[in-house]
């Protein structure tokens, strides 16, 4: 007998589903909810895409002046260490 999940129950398990942290049995239960419920299917699809665009986004270069000050601070620290002993 298959117990039908409510959308709310499905959403509670959404991360486990997306991160593949479910047992095979739970997974097929979640899967059958998506097959029956177009709204939850859309939520899964668009959440996966949300995660994908963030993972794929290249970080912007550090502004040059910020990076230069970082390297200067680091060089001072390195010189201190060598001079200090």
């Amino acid at each position, binding site marked *: 007998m298959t117990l039908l999940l409510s959308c709310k129950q499905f959403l509670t398990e959404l991360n486990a589903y997306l991160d593949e942290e479910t047992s095979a049995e739970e997974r097929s239960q979640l899967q059958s909810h998506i097959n029956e419920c177009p709204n939850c299917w859309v939520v899964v699809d*668009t959440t996966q895409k*949300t995660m994908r*665009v*963030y993972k794929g*986004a290249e970080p912007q270069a550090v502004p040059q002046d910020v990076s230069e000050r970082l390297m200067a*601070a680091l060089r001072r620290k390195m010189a201190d260490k060598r001079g200090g002993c």
Partner: protein
Amino acid sequence: MQASNGSVVFDEAALVERARGGDDAAFAGLVEQYQRKIYRLARNITQNAEDAEDVLQDAFLKAYTNLGKFHGDSKFYTWIVRIAVNEALMKLRKRRGDKMVSLDEEIELGEESVTREIAVWDGNPEQTYSQEEMRKLLDDAIQSLKPTFRSVFQLRDVEELSTEETAEALELSVPAVKSRLLRARLQLRERLTKQFKRKGDDAFAFL
């Protein structure tokens, strides 16, 4: 080291080993490799350019000073992320003054449901928008989250730390990380869907 395709392979473990042995150029190589990501992380958590610069500097200077305490049982990157997160949270708390930023407040998947926007996306936004436009959209969306959701999402889904590593870095329990991540993902999904949805698909929500 040269890869077969001609690009330079970044060998974190080898650089860390040399840096630990006192090779400052190797440490500078690690900084070079990770400064973009650490700066993004710092900006996203502190939401302030000045604080982000302090976090960037303090994190790498601390890592340099404490390199001897880094045991190599985790990745250097995970370690530097944890140092930077600590610095960033301290900044955030200082700036908010007495209004303590607690990452630990109770949250539930409430009835104000974060899933009102049910619409498929219009193709592939990475192809529709320029890299610059995408970056702005993604940054704006992340800035709209509460600090507690923002930090968890940043570490789990942007920096790709594990649930356990995220919990440790933010001093949260594993269930707390999981519930915050769910809220963060759903809120971002909601916001991005408003931006990326196929026009004329709204009726779908009432089916």
